């Protein structure tokens, strides 16, 4: 068995459509991947040629083809041993980078910080496995912007593994902006563990990858921990985006909000599987879930799966999922005011998606998120 097959085998093999939480993922392209070995580390010249410009006000980490390549925080990163494969089969692909012998890049953060993690893909052959473990000290207050840009080689996959540990009282605002070239294949994982009174708010914008699957696990392990997960998709013809969210309430008085807004244009497929579990050790938990999809064009499909599992009597929870098309009444109202059909449709779509972006407090980050989603959508 070659190294590539061995990597996958040790991770538990590729998911299949028989795996309940992978049934809407684009699995065929994954099966076509010829080699799961990591792309080679880039040369210093190749990194220099990228001419990466630091964003004012942010400390940075740069990954090029999955390898830590620089940035103002690079010297603060320590390396950890490879992780063992996850027992949770839905997150087993998170082990691939470790199994490909890539170290975990660990960054410990304290105090108030603004961090930008830029992941560039140069098109070099091989899989791109950026790995980062961010450990927030107690009461740290961090804004993290994660950007993915560039192009992947044919048959390559961006498979990032981000693990976040929030100490007691720590706050993390995490903005994930995927901006790879059209047709890219992305399979990534985010796992966050929150101690008492920690707070994690994430906004994920998926707008350009051809086929993407993001699995997010949020564990509220400490009393009073809170999470807010917001995901927005605007998929064009032929694209597919699949999200799995799992939130585990494992301590008292924890709170979670899960919000998805996805638009699938003709022949696109948007899916969101949001699984919130309130265990018996989480009395006083509050969980809200709102999943909304818009199908716009022939062959568009939106699949939503809201799930709430509650094992305690003391809980406040709500969930809802709706899919539909652009409201004809609203379209006519706007047209009666002189907006042409295309402009009216764009405006309504923008209003639909904007709902999940309102929590981005930083105006510049919000503009970047809007620009990613835009593609002619931004009015």
């Amino acid at each position, binding site marked *: 068995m070659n190294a590539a097959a061995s990597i996958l085998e040790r991770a538990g093999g590729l998911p299949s459509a028989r795996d309940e939480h992978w049934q809407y993922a684009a699995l065929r392209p994954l099966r076509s991947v010829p080699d799961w070995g990591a792309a080679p580390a880039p040369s210093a010249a190749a990194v220099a040629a990228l001419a990466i410009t630091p964003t004012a006000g942010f400390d940075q980490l740069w990954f090029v083809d999955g390898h830590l390549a620089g940035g103002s925080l690079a010297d603060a990163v320590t390396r950890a041993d490879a992780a063992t494969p996850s027992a949770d089969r839905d997150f087993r692909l998170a082990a691939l980078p470790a199994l490909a012998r890539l170290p975990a890049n660990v960054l410990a953060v304290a105090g108030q910080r603004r961090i930008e993690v830029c992941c560039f893909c140069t098109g070099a052959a091989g899989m791109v496995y950026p790995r980062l473990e961010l450990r927030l000290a107690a009461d740290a207050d961090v804004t993290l912007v994660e950007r993915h840009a560039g192009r992947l080689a044919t048959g390559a996959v961006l498979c990032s593994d981000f693990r976040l540990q929030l100490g007691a009282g720590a706050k993390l605002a995490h903005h994930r902006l995927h901006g790879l070239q059209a047709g890219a294949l992305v399979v990534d994982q985010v796992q966050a563990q929150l101690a008492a009174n920690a707070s994690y708010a994430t906004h994920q914008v998926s707008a350009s990858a051809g086929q993407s699957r993001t699995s997010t696990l949020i564990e509220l392990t400490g009393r009073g921990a809170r999470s807010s997960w917001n995901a927005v998709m605007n998929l064009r013809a032929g694209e597919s985006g699949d999200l799995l969210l799992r939130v585990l309430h494992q301590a008292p008085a924890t709170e979670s909000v899960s919000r998805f807004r996805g638009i699938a244009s003709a022949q696109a497929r948007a899916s969101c599987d949001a699984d919130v579990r309130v265990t018996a050790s989480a009395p006083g938990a509050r969980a809200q879930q709102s999943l909304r999809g818009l199908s716009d064009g022939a062959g568009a499909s939106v699949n939503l799966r809201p799930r709430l599992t509650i094992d305690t009597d003391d809980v406040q929870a709500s969930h809802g999922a709706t899919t539909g098309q652009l*409201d*004809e*009444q*609203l379209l*006519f*109202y*706007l*047209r*009666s*005011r*002189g*907006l*042409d*059909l295309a*402009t*009216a449709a764009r*405006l*309504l779509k*923008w*209003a*639909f998606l*904007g*709902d999940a972006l309102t929590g981005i407090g930083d105006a510049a980050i919000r503009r970047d998120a809007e620009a990613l989603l835009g593609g002619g959508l931004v*009015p």
Partner: protein
Amino acid sequence: MSALLEVSDLHVTVAGQPVLRGLDLVVNAGEVHAIMGPNGSGKSTLAYVLAGRPGYEVTRGSVRYRGTDLLGLAPEERAHAGLFLGFQYPVEIPGVNNAYLLRTALNAQRKQHGLAEIDAFDFLKLVRTRMQAMHMDESFLSRGVNEGFSGGEKKRNEILQMLVLEPTLAVLDETDSGLDIDALKVVAAGVNSLRAADRSIVLVTHYQRLLDHVTPDVVHVLARGRVLRSGDRTLALELERRGYDWVLEGAAA
């Protein structure tokens, strides 16, 4: 006096059901017409057909607006040509704020007339003036279109839009419904402020109380899909006193 709107033998079906069955109507420039009639008579259908709402099928007849076939125009083209529909049930559009819609609509109209987009400062000045006339607080501008508005506020917002867009033909579908007397006066004042020799207004209403404040030149009774009777303002008073039966009986005879 030139006809601004000429509706001739208009037959319309909705969901396969005939609603308008040979409606004729002529509105000259500068006139205010009131269209009254029992529930289900086709008043709102007429308003929607004039504005171009999808789902309303014209099976016979014609509508000419300023000498041009109106039915061949898309809804936005009718708006650009100066037609405005005040909705009976204005929709809510969360995420699209009132200022943005107003400015976009105004600029779309200006573009059609070969004018440059309105300057932000000038726009605010224009809108503020109109909002004062409608007794609307400026905070409404930053809210979603009709989002969380009371019924009366929604109707005021419709008139505000009309005042900003200054249409040549305004069709107001039950603009007075749900308004208290003070709101009615404000709305009526807004409508009256738009009266001009080159502008016409069609008021679809159930009640003559709006007509106490906006004096119509002509009152029509629309029933059974057609205009059965027309008259001056006194017709509205008679309908208030006698109802519609006598009109229907007269038409059947």
